[in-house]
């Protein structure tokens, strides 16, 4: 097992990791680290093929703690390395030479906490606006020095004679939200990409520290508004893991049914808007029409069309009615017939094939170094799915099928998502047959969860969502950190987008399926 070999190597380096119970904490191995051993340990992770999941920073007032999460595709045991830093002058060596994706997470920590990373190529502000005064997520206000508040490294780049700087700006029909890319163009080719995020930064993590657990809960649906149930599931699952609440089986199966319906709706929306980017206006209407059928079903059950507040900690808000099951069966039947329309209209279309075949290669090494997950990864030949590696909700009882393709181009990402719609329909049929009777909610109500920290991961239509909650026993979370799949998918675009034609860049960005508010949080 890879994890056993890695543990032995780390022990030889002098890094001791203990095994913690996964059902209580959400990660398998945990340990403290010293600053000088960090780079050596991370190189060990790289050698054994681990991918970087997240870098988290928590402000315990007497010190700042940085937590590095690593995971493996074949041996999915989460490693959690902790590093304590002095809050007066926090400085840590940067892991961006080994894992470039980690460099982006470090940039975010630099902005929100003030930790400086030695050896990082570009530590300018990514999310925050230049008028901000205090580091946002520190418990005691610390002023931001003026020379650090630089966007795009503080100065505009040098003008060259043959290069043309253009903004693929916040208001653009193809960026799927407010994402700004500052591109250096040479002719039609992109030479450099400088993204500027933060146009939709809605302070989700700060808000969690100001509101109680249930007051914060509706915000989880506003992070990723296209597939919100995965985020709600993540939050509720983390709280259930922290408070050790057992959810009844009927509730778990209903959660699975709604999650899969949400997945189909999200993939349909992606299909409509992606093809609209590429110039085809017709599939947009078909996709939205099918999506309206799902939204009707979910609206009758949950009460809202887009931002659901259906799950509760310990179960669900309300039980199903019988008409729901009948409608889901009708929908499955209708969707199977309609999938043929998409096949006829899109998959063999000469223009679509010319625009997506051979465009936007993401190979496994790039995916590993940036933490890419989701259908993008499964189109590059890696069978990693959180529903199989860390089963939650109804996936503990039913195993979903994985859509896997080898290639890594935009065309394969499209095919994987269409196959995932089919697999979701199969899973829905099976789940409807196996729906047990019973209560839909546990009676245990907890207002103040126990002290501790917990991690929970789910699979949203975009990739792996993770949440890390630190609770200090009071009504409000002490620290809440989201691992956003769109952020980790997007930062790989800064690597593969260099040297592309701008039309190909639009096709690749669309195929990554980004939702910008979950990037900016």
């Amino acid at each position, binding site marked *: 097992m890879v994890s056993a070999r890695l543990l032995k190597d780390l022990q030889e380096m002098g890094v001791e990791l203990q095994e913690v119970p996964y059902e209580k904490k959400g990660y398998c191995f945990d340990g403290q680290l010293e600053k000088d051993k960090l780079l050596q340990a991370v190189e060990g992770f790289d050698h054994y093929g681990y991918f970087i999941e997240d870098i988290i920073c928590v402000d315990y007032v007497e010190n700042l703690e940085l937590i590095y999460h690593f995971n493996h595709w074949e041996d999915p045991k989460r490693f959690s390395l902790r590093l304590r830093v002095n809050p007066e002058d926090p400085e840590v060596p940067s892991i961006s030479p080994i894992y470039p994706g980690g460099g982006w997470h470090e940039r975010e920590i630099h902005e929100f906490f003030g930790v400086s990373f030695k050896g990082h190529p570009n530590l300018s502000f990514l999310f*925050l*606006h230049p*008028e*901000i005064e205090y580091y*946002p997520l520190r418990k005691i206000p610390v002023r931001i020095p003026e020379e650090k508040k630089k966007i795009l490294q503080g100065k505009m780049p040098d003008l060259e004679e043959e290069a043309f700087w253009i903004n693929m*700006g*916040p*208001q*653009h*029909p193809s960026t799927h*939200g*407010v994402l700004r890319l500052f591109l250096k163009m040479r002719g039609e080719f992109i030479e450099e990409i400088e993204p500027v995020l*933060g*146009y*939709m*930064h*809605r*302070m989700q993590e*700060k*808000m969690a520290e*100001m*509101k109680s657990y249930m007051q914060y809960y*509706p*915000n989880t649906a*506003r992070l990723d*508004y*296209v597939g919100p149930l995965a985020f709600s599931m993540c939050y509720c699952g983390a709280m259930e893991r922290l408070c050790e609440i057992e959810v009844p089986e009927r509730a778990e199966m209903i959660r699975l049914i709604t999650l899969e319906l949400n997945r189909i709706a999200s993939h349909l*929306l992606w299909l409509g*808007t992606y093809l609209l980017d590429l110039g085809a206006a017709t599939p*947009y*209407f078909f996709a*939205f*029409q099918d*999506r*309206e059928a799902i939204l009707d079903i979910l609206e009758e059950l949950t009460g809202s*069309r*887009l*931002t659901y507040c259906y799950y509760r900690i310990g179960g669900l808000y309300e039980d199903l009615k019988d008409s729901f099951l009948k409608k889901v069966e009708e929908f499955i039947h209708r969707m199977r017939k309609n999938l043929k329309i998409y096949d006829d209209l899109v998959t063999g279309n000469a223009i679509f094939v010319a625009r997506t075949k051979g465009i936007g290669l993401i190979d496994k090494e790039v995916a590993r170094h940036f933490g890419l997950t989701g259908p993008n990864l499964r189109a590059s030949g890696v069978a990693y799915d959180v529903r199989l590696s860390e089963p939650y909700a109804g996936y503990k009882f039913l195993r979903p099928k994985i859509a896997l393709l080898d290639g890594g181009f935009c065309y394969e990402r499209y095919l994987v998502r269409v196959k995932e719609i089919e697999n979701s329909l199969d899973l829905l049929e099976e789940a409807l047959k196996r729906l047990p009777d019973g209560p839909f909610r546990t009676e245990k109500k907890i207002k103040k969860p126990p002290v501790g920290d917990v991690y929970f991961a789910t699979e949203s239509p975009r990739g792996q969502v993770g949440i890390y909650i630190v609770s200090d026993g009071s009504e409000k979370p002490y620290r809440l950190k989201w691992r956003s799949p769109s952020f980790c998918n997007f930062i790989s675009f800064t690597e593969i987008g260099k040297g592309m034609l701008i039309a190909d860049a639009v096709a690749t960005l669309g195929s990554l399926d980004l939702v910008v*508010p979950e990037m900016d949080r």
Partner: protein
Amino acid sequence: MEVYGPRIKIGLLEEFLNLARANSLWPMTFGLACCAIEMMATTAARFDLARFGAEVFRPSPRQCDFMIVSGTITKKIAPVLKTLYDQMASPKWVLAYGNCAISGGPFVFEGQYNVIEGVDKIIPVDVYVPGCPPRPEALIEGLLKLQEKLTGVRRFPIPERRW
């Protein structure tokens, strides 16, 4: 911002022009957050926005006269919003779609540092459509209200209930 009226103003011509403007509003795609998805659903086949004239969603502000601000306004996007509003052709109208555009929405809390509470702190707004997110029918109602503001006559009046 300098606002001038037309150089020649004839009553009947103004009425006719307002009727024409109301029935062919060209919205600009300024979808920021969750409400943008409901805006897109309004233009899709089920709740067709094209039957009221607002079919042509143009990304460039030079070709639009109607801005649907759907989503939260943060301090970073406020200058962008103002620039785009300036670059739109006049006469122009603004619809604030969703709670975030009206007053900051669910993202206003004590100690918040990034959200501007309402788009009417930056640009003048004509119609407010509340909801989180509002249903597509609410957007159509907002559009009809704007048309009523322009022409003075409400089309498709709400039928009287007799029970």
